[in-house]
């Protein structure tokens, strides 16, 4: 054993001494522990009835906390996360509206097209502008001369 001195020649005697020392140390330890506990036990101690009542109160408070904390947490989360999500939704809706908005533009364009077509039709049916008037006369004249030459040719035949 580690605490056996090498100079000792009688192991039995040494073991006896060692056991006595151990027993003495443990007796001292017991005495010290009793002293410490006695000293602390002299301090005031709450009555178990009061402790039980306090424990009940604590348990009730704990249960309340158990219910309230998640509810408050959810409310807080809704308050914190809600507005940004609402804002995001609003932005999405705006984008959607922006995307959707070109549709009326296309209908307007379609209306414009028909109007334009009508306008072109009406322009085509309109009289020739003044600046081109001589040309128009000429074409009408040439048309009439062609008709007269056809007539004379037919009579000659």
């Amino acid at each position, binding site marked *: *054993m*580690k*605490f*056996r001195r090498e100079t000792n020649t009688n192991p039995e005697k040494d073991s006896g001494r*060692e056991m006595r020392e*151990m027993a*003495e*140390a*443990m007796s*001292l*330890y*017991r*005495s*010290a*522990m*009793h*002293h*410490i*506990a*006695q*000293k*602390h*036990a002299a301090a005031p*101690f*709450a*009555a*178990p*009835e009061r*402790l*039980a009542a306090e*424990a009940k109160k604590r348990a009730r408070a704990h249960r309340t906390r158990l219910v309230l904390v998640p509810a408050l947490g959810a409310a807080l989360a809704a308050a914190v996360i809600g507005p940004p999500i609402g804002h995001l939704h609003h932005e999405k809706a705006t984008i959607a509206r922006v995307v959707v908005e070109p549709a009326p533009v296309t209908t307007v364009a379609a209306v414009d097209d028909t109007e334009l077509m009508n306008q072109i039709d009406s322009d085509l049916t309109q009289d020739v502008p003044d600046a081109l008037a001589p040309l128009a006369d000429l074409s009408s004249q040439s048309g009439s001369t062609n008709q007269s030459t056809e007539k004379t040719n037919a009579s000659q035949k």
Partner: protein
Amino acid sequence: MEEIAGNELAIEKRDQAVLELADFDEVVRVYRPRILRFLLSSLTDRDAAETLTQECFLKAWNARAQFRGDSSLSTWLTRIAVNLMRDHLRSRSLRFWQKTRGDSLDVMDISDWVPDGRSSPEDITVARHRVAEVWKAVGELSAHQRSVFVLRFVEELELEEIAETLNMNLSTVKSHLYRALAVLRERMGGKE
């Protein structure tokens, strides 16, 4: 005839234990030092020992209707304390950042302790040093070994009582005690 007498004695003991529990203030007064001592020696943490002592009596108060007197009041209370201590050690081991145990005996606690039969300052100092050595060695024991050691050498219970309190086989108790003593001899002897 002997059997009947034994049964009567057991019933009487049980009734006595139940009756004893009726005056709970007296129960606290009588058993508090013992429970505190056991927890203090086992945990080597004064605050935890005081808290668990209070919890122990609170549990006993709440469960007093269930106490049938099958064991002595002392064994019943110690068993509650052992269970509380196990729960405490388990929860403490989970909180790994917390210091696992007090390394040294609080000087304030034994500064006014004078060992029996020693009057010279030198003797007292030597005795305190020996106590500190045992304290440190006990701290190195496993939880089971420490409980068995404390119940045997501080509370001076019989091995059968220790087995009943800790809900262990007698052979297991003997084995824990043997190992605890071996560790103590090694630790204390190694310093010399």
